[in-house]
């Protein structure tokens, strides 16, 4: 789910940037550092505004100036039970991987309806039934997130398509 979220970040600025342009430099640094990253629980999609840039303080021993910046950003946070759409990136014999934005979700065989069977025909592995439903690399899939775990800057998720209205999307 997408949110607009307010956050704070402390960023050091190298002395060579100390000039009247220092606030711009620090802004740029913030964008570079934070946009598109994963905080462990959420993904920062885009910074939409900077609320405040504090007075810098020189960090003892380094000469770097420390700015505390509070900013507002669009973030994406997946939740357990959430239904999301994604693109299948790889199919293996015990399930398939779906890229939901930057999150990689694994859908295991137990979470796939039993009529979808694994096949290796033509060397492209896929899960397919006889009624035209097919899950192969590149197809769009709607799934429910069954579990999420986050480690430092990383998120793992397990998905399921074993429910009504879930599974491969018709193009």
């Amino acid at each position, binding site marked *: 789910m997408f949110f607009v979220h307010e956050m704070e970040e402390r960023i050091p600025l190298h002395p060579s940037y100390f000039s009247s342009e220092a606030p711009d430099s620090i802004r740029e640094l913030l964008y570079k550092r934070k946009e598109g990253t994963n905080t462990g629980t959420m993904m920062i999609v885009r910074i939409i505004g900077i609320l405040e840039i504090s007075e810098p303080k020189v960090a003892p021993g380094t000469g770097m100036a420390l700015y505390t910046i509070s900013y507002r950003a669009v973030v994406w946070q997946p939740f357990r039970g959430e239904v999301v759409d994604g693109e299948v990136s790889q199919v293996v014999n015990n*399930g398939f991987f779906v890229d939901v934005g930057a999150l990689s979700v694994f859908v295991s065989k137990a979470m796939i309806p039993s009529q979808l069977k694994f096949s290796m025909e033509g060397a492209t592995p896929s899960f397919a039934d006889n009624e035209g439903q097919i899950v192969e690399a590149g197809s769009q899939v709607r799934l429910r997130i069954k579990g999420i775990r986050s480690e430092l800057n990383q998120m793992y998720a397990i998905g399921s398509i074993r429910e009504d209205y879930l599974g491969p999307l018709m193009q």
Partner: protein
Amino acid sequence: MRLYTPNGLLYPVKVTRLLRQPGDEIEENAPLFDYEYKSKVLEGHINSKGHLEDKLVERTWPATFESELEGSLTSLNLTVGQVLTGKTLIADIEETCKHEVQFGGLCANCGKDMKEVKSYNSTVKGTDRATINTVHDRHGMHTVLVSQDETVRADEEAKRRLLDQRKLTLVVDLDQTVIQCCVEETVGEWKSDPSNPNFEALKNVASFRLPHDSKTYYLKFRPGLTDFLEEMSKYYEMHVYTMASRDYAQIVTNLIDPGRKIFGTRVLSRDENGPEMRKALKRLFPVDTSMVVIIDDRGDVWQWSPNLIKVNAYDFFVGVGDINSSFLPKRQELEAKPKQPTQFELEKAPDGVQADAPPADGQEPQGADKAARKPSAPLTPPLTPPAANGEVSAVDLMVSMAGGQDDNSMEEKKHEHDETLASQLADRPLLKKQKILDAADEEAKEGKDSPAVEEATEILREEGEKKEATPHDHPKYRHNLLQDDDTELTHLGNNLRSVHDAFFADFEKGVSAGDIGRVAELRPGKSKKQTVQDLQNLPDAAVIMQAIKSRVLGGVHLVFSGVVPLGVNVHTHDTVIWAKTFGATVTENITKKTTHVIASPERRTAKVRQAAKKGGRIAIVSSGWLFACFSQWEKVDENPFRIHSDAPLNGAAGLPGFEDKEAGTLSSSDEEAALTETEAENETDGEAVNGSQPTLEIDTDVEEELAKYAPHDGRADSSPTEEQQSEDWDALQAELNEFLGSEAEDSDAPDESDNESSALSSNNSTPGNHKRKRDAEADEAPTTNSEGSRLQKRKKEAMSRTTSLNNMSSAGNLDGAVAVDEPAAADDLGGIDEEDGDDVDLEAALAAELEKDDDDGGEAEGES
């Protein structure tokens, strides 16, 4: 899942009350039973004096046992009053989810976090339930791990699928097996220059770049690769398993298999392989490898897995080797590349010197060349960094194999890898070699014999590459370094097909051997029962392959000589292990059973000479023969590979080396030194013209040689003193050779049976025996008519020997090299003894020699 009491309980414990019944649903940490245990504690007591005093007392405490698992309780193996004395199985709990498939620390089936330590009660880590990685995976850290049970299930499914498609699995290595890659810019330059001699060969070389890497990689397919892959994909499900990086593997796979129709996503690179430097089939097929065949140019990285078909390494970019070899254990190589006379060499002779080598002579070795060259080509020249070449000590090997365990060494490897590539970029080994070739061409044109020519010859020889047959009067011709003439894949394809056929033939047999009626009944439905039965009867591809392979060199007894580097245990050497997988028996010394000696063409070692003396029984061949057998899976004709065939018993053969000697171009002093008396004999035999001069010259060399290499290897007629009568020496020698030839064959026969051999050893003392033998011989020998004249010559010879015999005995003391050969000679002399009994002088001489013979012969026999 079974529930055990943990080791940490204060045993013995006594069950006092059961809290749950089988069939109950239990949640995590639910109490299962009450128990009591005893322990000693300090308690304060007031003693008789009224003081407080600590006292150790044993007390019984009550406690409750809680289940760490959740699910439904299927059985509870406890009774009230039971005393548990150690870790005991107490219950069986059917879990709702066994967490058998995990992804990123999550159970893929229920979504629970497996890395979380659930409670104070857990004894088993959630992540321990699924530890096997079976996916060739792009996800790096987030791999899908599965449990043993799940793996078995998946494996069965995969096998059923393969059986339905009538396919086996083929694991393919990339570098030097199906392709070769290099980063040398020279290739790019040559490729865009049509005037370059290598232009033709480079036409279909592809180039690519890796992300985050400025180097251009040049990729050469092994000839026939596209057809090979296409053909094989009908019989095999193909996997890539390489020690290259993920990016490299993906790009190369895309190049050799555009559209990924053949390999799909089944690409495993070193990024997924973990820190080890070996490849393990278990990584991809953890349960059963009975339907897997591997092709790789390295046997050691697979620990010579029985599923492996080792192929001859593809070496197109000469001197480059495998650019990813830093991630592999060091490669053992044969010490000496088999030197084959190259076209270049043959060509040079007429150019450089005015030798009149007739074209017929040139052609014969050429034809042999074509066959011989290819298999020997894969003996790669040293890799660019010298470190990767040559003898690899066992310690080194172990260090390098064990070293790959931690990240640091992986870093080191990467560093080493980068350095290798950098040095390749900087040094441009290909360009250098081509320059040498060009220089040599120039020189050759001017009719000079120069160091450059020598060097170029050396290079060509090292490569063992076939040079295109070009008329040497072609003025513009420059020799091209790169050759595109590999046929390995053709043979490999055939072999793989025959493995496939044999496997399914066996499989069908297994199925029909089972309950035919039932199978037939079940077949249409493809019921599970039937396939399970199929799986039980599944033949093993490894066994089938071994059976096919061991027929190839079955009954062949090999001796390696001058091929395996000194100081290396023969039986651990790659080539030797490889030969053994084909059913050959390898011994260190020549024995009665030896059938082939694999030797180096440059060096005539003691073993070669020994083998030559056994007559035609032992084939002396270059290692090219062995590689041809390996590649074609059949015992190929030895004749094109025979070397040192100028040994006396095989008659004079037009070996190129021999001609070179005649022309006097290539006879370096080394080679001269390596000459032995047998060669010398032969020379004089064939070409009576230069008889005395070279033989005398060689004489000293021979002595040295023998002293060095051949302590008990020699023959009566090989005594150096013999050279003294050079007048009728040639004629005598010819006849003697012939005579000995028949004798030697005879004397070989007893080797087969102990019975006769003992008879033979005693034949000096029992003339009757002799007579018989002699008669039999006379019947056999076609030359019986000339016996009289021959004997006279012999007599003469022996007369003049009387003096030389004295010399000989002193020489014999020196080195024992003159030690007279075993029964053959003894027999021979005995024969003379018998028929010319009146010749006293001769007899005395012979007696002296005979005495010696007896000693030596006895020794020799004891050994053989």
